[in-house]
């Protein structure tokens, strides 16, 4: 009960309204990111590492182990836990050899749309002092799809106005990995 109240409070603080009646999960044509629920759950955030959780999801989606393993001690580097700003992200990306666009300011909207259109996820500022993963954007309906690392099994849908409030609540900062997007899950169609 206490946690529910806390979640509601956070939502209200951020001024975000999650669109109801839309259920979406991977894989889905509306989503740029393709990560099954159980893999997203690896990035559930228990200790204020939301930036690394968000980048980590993008790392798995684009098959970049250096980014996917940010939260843990591996041969790619020691774990990165706790809060981050653009300079810390820049530092650990340098250390691990991760290529990324670390973008702040008014252009973040265009970058997020570009990433979604080209099949990439984006780690985005979303909610007060919080980072989440942008999973997709549907320009026809103006719907943004976001996975919150506090509830990674769910993908939330936002309309334009709600998403705008969500993103602005954190300050305009996004991180996009500079690697190819994932391919669609391949299937055999007898075209020959």
């Amino acid at each position: 009960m206490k946690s529910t109240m806390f979640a509601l409070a956070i939502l209200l603080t951020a001024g975000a309204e999650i669109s109801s009646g839309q259920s979406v999960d991977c894989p889905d044509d509306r989503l740029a990111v393709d990560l099954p629920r159980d893999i997203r759950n690896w990035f559930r955030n228990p200790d204020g590492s939301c930036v690394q959780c968000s980048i980590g999801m993008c790392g798995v989606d684009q098959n970049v182990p250096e980014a996917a393993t940010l939260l843990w001690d591996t041969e790619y580097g020691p774990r990165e836990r706790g809060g981050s700003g653009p300079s810390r992200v820049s530092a650990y990306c340098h250390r691990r050899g991760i290529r990324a666009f670390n973008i702040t300011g008014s252009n973040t909207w265009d970058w997020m749309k570009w990433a979604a259109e080209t099949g990439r996820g984006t780690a985005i500022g979303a909610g007060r002092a919080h980072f989440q993963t942008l999973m997709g954007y549907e320009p026809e309906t103006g719907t943004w799809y976001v996975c919150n690392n506090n509830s990674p099994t769910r993908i939330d849908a936002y309309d334009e106005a709600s998403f705008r409030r969500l993103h602005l609540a954190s300050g305009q900062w996004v991180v996009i990995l500079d690697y190819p997007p994932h391919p669609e899950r391949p299937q055999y169609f007898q075209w020959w």
Partner: protein
Amino acid sequence: MRSLFLAILTIGSLSSAALAQSNRPEVDHAEVMRLGDTVQYVGTHAAGAENADAFVAAMSPPESDADKWFISVLTMKGCAPCEKLKRDWATNEWLLALANPSDSKRSWAHYKVYDKDDESQKFRWEKVKITAYPTIIIQPPRSEIYGDPATVVFQKVYQGDPERLARGISDAIRRYIARLQTIHESEPSGLIGQSAPPWQPVPRTDPFRPPPKTPFPLIDPNIPPEPVPVAVPASIFPWSAVLGLLMAGFSIPAVIALVIWGFRFIREKRQAAGKPLLLDQETFDELIALLRQLSETQAQSAPVKK
């Protein structure tokens, strides 16, 4: 003064155009290689007429990142051919024309290497059959300009010949583009608290050091399937030459007949196994003709027994 300003503007725009052009290579050699053996008729022809326009467009530099084809290389640890393919793709001009692993922006296709044991990526390959490594899978762009991006346009196991692989990929795309209009019509449409990740990430470098001459794996599912080779009739064994050797003793024509049979036998075996032939057909025919000629000369010059 006004005309001077105009002149400066004109010179400035011309020089900037020349500068922009100088950034492009004079000949896009990579695109030439991607096209392989293609004849495109450029001129006035009816829309939809049989020509190479669609294929040439598909192999041209993509307009945007979303228009890039996908090349996925599925590998496994301790696999010498996998390491060879990765090395070849970093250095061979035929493969670099398709994808540049070290420069994704200039790469014609999106290129990614996946490890079969990477638990974080296994879900991607659940609908395809892969039993040998390295397997190369080609898929259309995400933008759907060439149909469903999930479609496997090409799937093959690397056999060690980069040019053959590159030509195979281009040829599969050519055939796929040609069939594109009809193909889909018949188809139904928290473990964060621990210090180790919840899956075993792929190692940064594969510690396996391959022994030289490790055999390449057997062929896996081939997409598109290669045409079944027409059975080549086995060469008739030259029994008469053997009998001649046994009955009449050594004779050069009989030995030549056996040599010709041997050459044919080896060639047919290689053809049947799908291995590259040692000589092209023209050279082989010339060699056989030369041997026959030698045999006839020897037969004519042999003393007549009375």
